[in-house]
């Protein structure tokens, strides 16, 4: 069967095309499965850290809780506010969702990366596509015709744009070290040591910027519940709301995958199969995000901006300069 997935060095004919379609569907299903259990995992971890037991009613240990939630969202009435900008309102979740799924295409899940593309500009591709989601979020906030949603959408746009820059710069260090933008090559370049060690500064910047990009605590201002009720998706219900949720958690997965790939050696690791190593690293990153959420209060919007421009950006640049100098002289 493996020949079906070797599309990246064959010309486009119907067989590889079929492979692509099947691959996309498989990745989508993996993504959905991961999201389902991400949410379950999040609720369990938060529950445990807070003296609770988390979901436990639907299925054994509450394992089917997320399915029940998704089912509930899907069969709920789809409300479009009368005063909303209807077409944009309907379009926004889709715009937000599609890139979040597309970025999964370049993440090498395992040694053979059977379902994913071996793109030579993988890192750049990720950054470029993830930026599109901002439009969906902003349009959603705008089209809802709700003040809270608007503020949420605006905050979201400002935040994601500001943090995209340190995020990109922190990647550049890794790219310099690996000498390639191809995520597979970057993984291969980490055979001696994981880039988290030489690139510790870059990793810290990446960690903060990634948290902000994901709109997660302490950077969850766009959906600050206590201030903006729910932020940009306050007017969304049913499966449109589910799309926003899906986007968020898919990005969490993708970002965890990116972090694992760039800094933690991707699927590299002794004894265990590659995909398992990858899964462990992704899970560790995701757990860290949940742990943060259990501990941290939220930043204020002006502090958020100044933190990005005044702290993260200089540190990322410094890291870049150091990496370049070391790379040139050593």
């Amino acid at each position, binding site marked *: 069967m493996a020949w079906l997935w070797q599309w990246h060095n064959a010309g486009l004919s119907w067989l590889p095309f079929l492979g692509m379609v099947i691959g996309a569907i498989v990745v989508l299903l993996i993504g959905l499965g991961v999201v389902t259990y991400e949410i379950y995992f999040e609720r369990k971890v*938060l529950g445990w*850290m*807070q*003296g*609770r037991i988390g979901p436990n009613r639907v299925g054994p240990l509450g394992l089917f809780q997320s399915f029940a939630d998704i089912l509930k969202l899907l069969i709920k009435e789809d409300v479009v506010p009368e005063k909303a900008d209807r077409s944009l309102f309907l379009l926004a979740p889709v715009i937000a969702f599609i890139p979040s799924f597309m970025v999964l295409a370049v993440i090498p899940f395992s040694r053979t990366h059977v379902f994913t593309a071996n793109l030579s500009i993988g890192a750049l591709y990720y950054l470029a596509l993830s930026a599109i989601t901002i439009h969906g979020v902003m349009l959603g906030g*705008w089209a809802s*015709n709700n*003040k*809270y949603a*608007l*503020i949420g959408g605006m905050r979201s746009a400002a935040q994601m744009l500001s943090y995209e820059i340190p995020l990109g710069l922190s990647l550049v260090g890794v790219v310099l070290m690996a000498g390639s933008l191809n995520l597979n090559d970057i993984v291969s370049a980490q055979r001696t040591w994981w880039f988290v060690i030489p690139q510790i500064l870059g990793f810290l910047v990446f960690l903060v910027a990634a948290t902000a990009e994901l709109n997660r*605590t*302490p950077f*969850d*201002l766009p959906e*600050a*519940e*206590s*201030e903006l*009720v729910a932020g940009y998706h306050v007017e969304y219900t049913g499966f449109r709301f589910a799309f926003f949720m899906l986007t968020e958690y898919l990005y969490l997965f993708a970002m965890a995958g990116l972090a694992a790939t760039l800094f933690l050696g991707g699927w590299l690791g002794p004894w265990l199969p590659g995909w398992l190593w990858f899964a462990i690293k992704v899970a560790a990153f995701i757990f860290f995000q949940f742990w943060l*959420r*259990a*501990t*941290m*209060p*939220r*930043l*204020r*919007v*002006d*502090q958020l901006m100044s933190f990005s421009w005044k702290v993260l950006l200089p540190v990322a640049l410094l890291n870049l300069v150091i990496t370049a100098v070391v790379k040139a002289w050593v």
Partner: protein
Amino acid sequence: MRTMALLDEANQVRTEEMLLNVGPQHPSTHGVFRLLVKISGETILDADPVIGYLHRGTEKLAEDLQYTQIIPYTDRLDYLAAMLNNYAFCHAVEEALDIQVPERAEYLRVILMEMQRIASHLLFIGTYLLDLGAMSPFLYVFQERERIVQLFNEISGARLTYNFMRIGGVKYDAPPGWLDKVRAFVPFMREKIKMYDSLITGNEIFLDRTRGVGVYDAETALAYGMSGINLRSTGFDWDLRRKKPYSIYDRFDFAVPLGQHGDCFDRYYLHLLEMGESLKIVEQALEQIPDTGPVLGKVPRLIRIPAGEYYSGIEGARGELGFFIVSDGKDKPYRLKIRKPSFVNLQLLPRLLRGQNMANLIAILGAVDIVLGEVDA
């Protein structure tokens, strides 16, 4: 939506003001409280609190109730510190009648009141941190509060609306073993206070959000009639337990923690410190409490207050909680006025909010520590 920037002739960005209606149903208004905020971008130009959504006319209702019957209504004012409300009312009536309360009852009252203060402060810390975006403290505080509430449940039979104090004493004596449970609670709570200190106080984001936010000075606070922690956070030493000792507070050794800057952080930290002081009082009261004795003084069955006007205030969980009773000699008050600390403290809010960032709104409102049941009465 005409809130986006419009371009005028000089091609300068002009923004339009927007009226944002925070509440009546909003996650961080802690009840049904509405705040009309005029904002430009995210800067607050003006704020107008609208209250009364929970107005039940307690003062009017009380005019038709006998003094004993009013006690359950006081439970429902500040429902997070019902013991203190109970006491404040009973104390006012006792002052008016010059009733002597038995020793054991006084000690039980003090233990209960200080435990209630801890429970109320705990909830403040939890909700305040929840407002600022940290969700774990909210769930932690409920675990400790649950222990207090369980103790209250054992002694009074209710978890929230205790109706436990009586004019001239308390309703029941403590059940056997109850005082030992309180004794065991004190060191447990000390540990927990330490835990909160390390969980919250050092967090840089929390400090950034609260330091220097919502600052006012002692003069302003006094002019606006603020009381409790809201006043003490400015460094002004005013605790009624010290300044006008009621009950038996003059027998205990405790400190009155004071703030320095009058900002939200001081208000948070004073809540934490006061819990420690309350524990000290509980500890001393447990040592001094007589082993036996009556818990209800000699009170006539039907209480009639001689005609006149009576006011007495106590240090509630949120500030000075006072009851003003006008009596015409009958068994029902002619007029009952409640001096509601949250109500008075809330007045400063518009002034504090002007010129602030939207996100500070939550930090400032949360630190004022209001309970809508009390604000609206």
